[in-house]
C-alpha cells in the first residue's frame, strides 16, 4: 500500500511539474488563420499549435489521435464554428476530456460569434450541395472580421492569463492599427477593379468580394462540394466570355487541370490563392496572406 501511495505521489508530482514547467498558454487553433493571429496577439506568452494543414481542404481533416493530445493539454481552443470543422472536431473534443475548452468555458473561442455570416440559406437542403446551414464560414479573409476575431482572442488570452492582459491588449491594438493602415493600401490597389467579375473554384470568397467590391458569383463547382461537370464548365466558360472575367481563384487543394482548361478557353488567368497563412510562400502572417492575395489578384485583373 505504502509503495503504491508513493508511486502515485511521484506520478502526481511529475504531472504537476509537466503542467507548470512553462507558464505559456497552450493554444490550439483548428485552422492556420486563427493560429497566425493567436501568435501575433500572444507573442512569447503563448504556445500555438494548429490542427489543419494550411494547404488541405479544411472541411475534410483527419481526426488524428495526436490532435486529442494537443486538445487535452490546451488552455485555449480557437475554432471557426459555423459547422466548418463539424466533420472532424467533435470526436476529437469528445476524447480530449478537457474542461478548460468545453462549450461555454472561458478558454473556448468560437470565432464566428460576433460575426454576421453571409449567405445563410433560407432552406438548407443537401440538394444544393454541401451547404452550410449557418452561413458561409470562410469569413476570416475579410480583414475587418479578422480584427474582431483578434479582439475576441485577445480578450480570451486576458481572461486565461490575467497577468499579461495589458500585453495582449496592446498586441491587439497594434494588430488592429496595422489592419486599418493596410486596408488603405489594399483598398487603393483594388479600387480600379471595383465590380470586376472573378471566378472561383469553390464558394469560399464572398467576404473578400464584399470587402473590395468585386463580384465572385461564378464557380467551377456546380454546387458547393460537387465536382465540376463538363456541361457546367461549358456554361461557366460562356459566362466568363460574356462578362470578360479575367481571373480564376484556385485554392491549393483544388484540381488545377480543370481550372487550366477553363483558363485556356477564356484567356483568364489562374490566381493561386489560399484562405490560410502558410499555404502560399512568404505568407506566415495574416497580413502577408492578404498582401499576397491582393497583389496576385491585381496582377491577374490588371492583365500585366
Amino acid at each position, binding site marked *: 500500500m505504502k509503495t503504491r501511495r508513493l508511486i502515485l505521489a511521484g506520478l502526481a508530482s511529475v504531472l504537476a511539474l509537466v503542467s507548470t514547467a512553462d507558464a505559456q498558454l497552450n493554444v490550439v487553433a483548428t485552422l492556420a488563420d486563427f493560429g497566425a493571429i493567436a501568435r501575433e496577439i500572444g507573442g512569447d506568452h503563448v504556445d500555438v499549435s494548429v490542427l489543419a494543414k494550411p494547404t488541405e481542404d479544411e472541411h475534410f481533416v483527419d481526426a488524428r489521435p*495526436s490532435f486529442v493530445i494537443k486538445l487535452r493539454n490546451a488552455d485555449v481552443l480557437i475554432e471557426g464554428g459555423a459547422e466548418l470543422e463539424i*466533420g472532424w472536431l467533435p470526436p476529437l473534443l469528445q476524447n480530449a476530456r478537457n474542461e478548460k475548452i468545453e462549450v461555454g468555458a472561458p478558454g473556448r473561442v468560437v470565432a464566428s460569434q460576433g460575426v454576421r455570416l453571409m449567405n445563410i440559406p433560407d432552406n438548407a437542403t443537401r440538394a444544393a450541395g454541401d451547404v452550410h446551414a449557418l452561413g458561409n464560414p470562410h469569413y476570416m479573409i475579410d480583414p475587418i472580421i479578422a480584427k474582431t476575431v483578434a479582439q*475576441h482572442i485577445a480578450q480570451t488570452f486576458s481572461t486565461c492569463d490575467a497577468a499579461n492582459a495589458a500585453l495582449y491588449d496592446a498586441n491587439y*491594438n497594434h494588430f488592429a492599427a496595422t489592419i486599418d493602415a493596410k486596408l488603405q493600401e489594399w483598398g487603393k490597389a483594388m479600387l480600379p477593379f471595383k465590380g470586376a467579375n472573378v471566378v472561383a473554384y469553390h464558394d469560399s470568397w464572398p467576404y473578400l468580394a464584399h470587402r473590395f467590391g468585386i463580384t465572385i458569383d461564378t464557380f467551377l463547382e456546380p454546387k458547393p462540394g*460537387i465536382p465540376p461537370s463538363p456541361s457546367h464548365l461549358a456554361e461557366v466558360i460562356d459566362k466568363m466570355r460574356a462578362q470578360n472575367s479575367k481571373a480564376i481563384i484556385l485554392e491549393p487543394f483544388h484540381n488545377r487541370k480543370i481550372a487550366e482548361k477553363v483558363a485556356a478557353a477564356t484567356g483568364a488567368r489562374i490566381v493561386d490563392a489560399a484562405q490560410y497563412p502558410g499555404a502560399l510562400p512568404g505568407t506566415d502572417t495574416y497580413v502577408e496572406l492578404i498582401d499576397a492575395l491582393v497583389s496576385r489578384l491585381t496582377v491577374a485583373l490588371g492583365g500585366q
Partner: protein
Amino acid sequence: MSIRVISPAILCLTLLTSGAASAQQTTTAPSAPSMQSSDMESLKQQMLRMQSSLEAQQTRHQREVAALTAQVERLHTTIADLQKSVAANATVSAAAKPTGTAPAERPPSGAADAAFPTTDDDVVAAKAQPAVPAKQTQAAFPTTDASVTPAATPTAAARLTGPLTIVGGAKTFLNISFDGQFSGATSTEKHLDTLEVGDHDPHQRGFNARNVELALDGAVDPYFEGFANIVFKLDNNNETSVELEEAVMQTTTLPWNLQVKGGQFFAPLGRINAQHPHAWDFVDTPLVNGRLLGPDGLRGLGAQVAWLTPLPWYSQLSLAAQNGSGSTGFSFRNRGDGDTFYGRTTVDRQLGGAGDLLFVPRFENSFDLSATQTLMVGASGAFGPNDTGTDQRTQIYAADFFYKWKSAHSSRGWPFVKWQSEALMRRFEAGRGVDYTFPVSETFDDWGAYSQVVWGFSEGWTAGLRGDFLHMQESAFTDDPERQSRWRTSPNVTWFPTEFSKFRLQYNHDFLEANRFLASGSEDSVFLQFEFSLGAHAAHKF
C-alpha cells in the same frame, strides 16, 4: 430597448381593455335602470388608480432612460479612451516601423485623404464598435463593418450568452441521422447466409437491406453525452427486425483524463469491431471477426473506463466489463441457435459474481510518422465464461494496426492510402454441455487475420483489396460448418458522389478447406452496395 418601449404600451392596452370590459359589464347589467352612483364612484376610482399607475410607469421609464443615457455617455468616454490608445499605438507602430503608414500627426477629424474604408458595419456590429469611428479616421477605407461583425466587442458576457456551437449543430439538442445500406448480390453459393459470416452482410441472392440505421446523439447535460444506434434489418422473408445496437451515455470532462461510459455498446476489441457498417471499407465482415467474435460483433450491456495516459503521444488504456451474454457475446455466455454451440447442448449459466462478467482490456497508441502519415496500433483481449460447460472459459487476444497517408493538398479528403490489419486468437474451452451429454471436452485454439489496403486514387473514388484467413482447429467430434477453416480474397471499387452517398462493387473469392466432415470448395460472389445518409453531419473518427 424596444422591449422597454413596448411593455408600457402593452400595459396601457391591457388596462384599457379591462376598463372597457368593466364598462361593458356596467352597461349590460339588466337590474340597473340608470347607472348607480356607487358604480360611477368605483369606475372613477379605477380610472384614478390607472392614472397613477401610468404615472408611476412613466417615472420609472424616465429613470431608465436617464440611466441608459448615462451608460451611453460612459461608453462614449470608453470609446474615446480606446481611440486615444489606438491612435497612440498607431503612432508607436508608425515610429517603430518605417514602413508603417499610420501618420504620426492625425489629420483633423472629417478630413478624408484616405479612400478605402477600414470599418464595415455590415460585418461587425456598430453599436459597441471599439474601432475608430469614421469621423476620426484618417482613412477613407472603412475599418469597421457592422454588417459583418454586429457586436464588435464580443465581451465576456456576450460570449457566454451568445449562441453556443453544440457538437453537431448549433440549434438542436439532438442530432438525428438515418443511414440506409442496401446491396445487390449474386453468388455461386445458393445460400449466401452460410457463406457470409456477418449479420449485416448480404444474406441472399438478389437485394438485401441488412443495415438501415437510425442514429441519435447529443449533449445530455454539461456532464454527459448520449448516443444511440437503432438498426432495422430485413430478413430473407422480408420481415423487419429491430436491434438496439448501441445506447450509451458517456462522461465528457472527468478529471485525471478518465472517461466512463455505460449502456449497450461495442466492446473495444480491435478496430473494426467497434465500427458501424457504414464506416467499413468492404461490403462484409472479415472472416475472423464473424467467426471468433460472432456475426453481430462483440457488444453488450456494460460499462467501460478509459484512461488517456499522460504520455506525450496518444496512448489510451481502457477496460470494459459486459454481461457477455447472448448472440452478441458469441464466444462467451451464448447458448447458441437451438441451445447448441459447437455441437454441445449449452448450459444456462447465470452470473455467479463479478468474475463471470466479460472483461475487455485494450491498450492503443498512435504516432504521427510525418505530417501526412499516421500510425495506430492496439492490443486487446476478451476474457469470460462460456456456456458449453459449467466452468468453461474463453480467452481472445487481438492485435490491430492502422496506417494512413493523406496528401497535404487533399481535396474532400482525397488522395489517401489506408492499410488496416487485425489478427485474433481464441482459446475456447468447449465443455461437455449440459449434464455432460457431449462425449468429450476439448480446447479449440482458433485464429485468423485480415489485411486490407484502400487507395483513394482520385477524388471520390477508392480501390480496395482485402485478404482474409481463418484457421479453426480441427475436431473429431463436431461437424459444425462454422468451424471450417477458410480464406477469402476481396477486391472492390467504391464511388462516393458526395460524403452522403456511395456505390461499391465488390468481388469475393472464397475457399473452404476440407476437414473430417466437410468437403473443400470455392465460391465466387459479386456485390453491388449502395448507401445514403440523411440528417446530422456525421463526424469521422480516425
